[in-house]
């Protein structure tokens, strides 16, 4: 079967710095990938490249076997959803209007909203626990509420590939666990929890998340891309990549691990 996303021999640069070179990935439906590395290691650049917002210096990205470069932004947006780190609200709209923007790639009518899109947007707000804020102006929200709204917009888009840039930003610890379950349900294709459209539920969506939280990645992800710096990357199963010596090299500081109640935790020494 064609993998959902294939990255082949990617070379990414920022100015004179090499972020990654010779990076290849095969992301299958239902997989959960973590993207780890220091500040400035290139996590965001890699995510943007996989979303087709940035052209790699070398190499290709294939979506369902088709090169991203040959797809229009609209075609990509039907499959790929991206959670960005920063939001702009110079000309603010309401929470519901913003969540509805997630339906943009799927909407055919240029002027009128249909009931299904509205229902999907409401459902996404409900999943993120912010349905009561639906009529509030976006610029009156707290940082955490904005992050929830950005996630709701992403869920309303119903992508088959979710690219998340620091999804736990601004979220308090109490909401991180429900969020993780929500995201996991997208990948597992559990119809009870998932709000991904029914035809992809059976397969589950794939999730790739960039995070600075090693423990979050260790808990959630089955595969890891560790960006070490100088273009070097480690790609593989979480258990193989998440080792003290690899992390120490990537984060430039000694890192130890403990096992507690079936969970692995990493901490800097």
């Amino acid at each position, binding site marked *: 079967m064609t993998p959902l996303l294939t990255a082949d021999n990617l070379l990414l640069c920022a100015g004179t710095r090499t972020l990654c070179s010779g990076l290849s990935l095969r992301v299958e439906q239902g997989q959960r990938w973590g993207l780890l590395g220091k500040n400035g290691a290139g996590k965001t650049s890699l995510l*943007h490249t996989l*979303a087709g*917002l940035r052209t790699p210096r070398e190499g290709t990205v294939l979506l369902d076997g088709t090169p991203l470069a040959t797809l*229009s*932004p*609209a*075609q*990509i*947006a*039907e499959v*790929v*959803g*991206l959670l*960005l780190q*920063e*939001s*702009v*609200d*110079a*000309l*603010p*709209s*309401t929470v519901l*209007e*913003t969540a509805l*923007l*997630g339906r*943009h*790639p799927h*909407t055919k009518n*240029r*002027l009128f909203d249909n009931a299904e899109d509205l229902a999907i947007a409401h459902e996404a707000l409900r999943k993120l626990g912010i349905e009561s804020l639906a*009529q*509030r*102006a976006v610029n*009156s929200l707290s940082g955490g509420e904005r992050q929830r709204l950005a996630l709701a917009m992403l869920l309303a*888009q119903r992508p088959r590939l979710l690219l998340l840039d620091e999804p736990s930003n601004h979220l308090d610890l109490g909401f991180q666990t429900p969020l993780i379950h929500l995201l996991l349900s997208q990948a597992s294709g559990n119809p009870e929890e998932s709000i991904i459209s029914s035809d992809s539920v059976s397969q589950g969506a794939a999730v790739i998340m960039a995070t600075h939280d090693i423990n979050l990645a260790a808990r959630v992800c089955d595969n890891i891309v560790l960006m070490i710096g100088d273009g070097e990357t480690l790609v593989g199963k979480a258990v193989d990549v998440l080792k003290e010596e690899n992390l120490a090299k990537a984060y430039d500081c000694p890192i130890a691990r403990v096992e507690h109640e079936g969970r692995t935790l990493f901490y800097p020494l």
Partner: protein
Amino acid sequence: MSQFQPFRLLLIALLAAFASVLVSLLSGSVELSFDDLIAYTVGDIPALQRQVLEDIRLPRTLAAFVTGAALALAGVLMQVLLRNPLADPYILGLSGGAAVGALASIMLGLGGWWLSGTAFVGALVSVGVVFGIASRSGRWSTTHLLLTGVVVSAGWGALINLMLSTSASASVQGMLFWLMGDLSQSRVGLMQIGILITGSALALRAARSLNVLVRGDLVAASLGVHVNGLRLSLFFGASLLTVIAVTTAGSVGFVGLVVPHMLRLTGARDHRLLIPFSLLAGGTFLVVADTLARTLLAPQQLPVGVITALIGVPSFIAILRSAPSR
């Protein structure tokens, strides 16, 4: 919480537009009654009234409506392009270029078509300069574009001041009227109306994409919008609309800044609503302002730009104060 009702508002805006046009047609030194208007539609009207209506009031009212609508729409588009609530149609220096062109005509004692012709050329030069600088740097970032526009405006401003200070005092009053915006000689033809209708239709077609674009270039791109193409269209579309406005009436201030904001504050943030509302409200606003400009101190005519600011400032403050701070 009161639900926002687009269709009711749209109806109110339509009625207001209609009423403003009626009042404008009926106001002036020659008495015209509502019955005369009815008589006109069936072709049964005295010659004097017919002449006043056909040669003076209808063309001037039409010019005011088209100019106001074009400015309000250009303001909406510019605010999306620059993602800045302070953006107005003139922010990228276009009116400065047009003003230098128009003032040159006045200085040389040329009138009529020369005035709008040179204003047109000046505006195009300004658009070209800003576009050249902004695209040569390869970065269409909003900040870069905004700074380019501000600097180009400042350059035009210096030229305008130079022309004002060196011109014969007899022509300075004409220059000031042009700079403040004045509809007394204004006429619009099929070209201006055609550009306005085409621009409105295209803007409405892109309204959903504009909603996405105000959330940021990256958000828009990740939701499938052709960001560069759309921003280029916004730049040239807003510029063209502003060009038809300034060549018709000079640089009438305030309409393009205040009308979109008033509507945003009353709840029309969605561009599918904001675009038609802005067209109607911008046109109405300028028709009312122009009616006041020619009747308040009649027979003395005031520059309409003064009136737009005099009505605009207090009503904007009132709406700002009453807007729910949710």
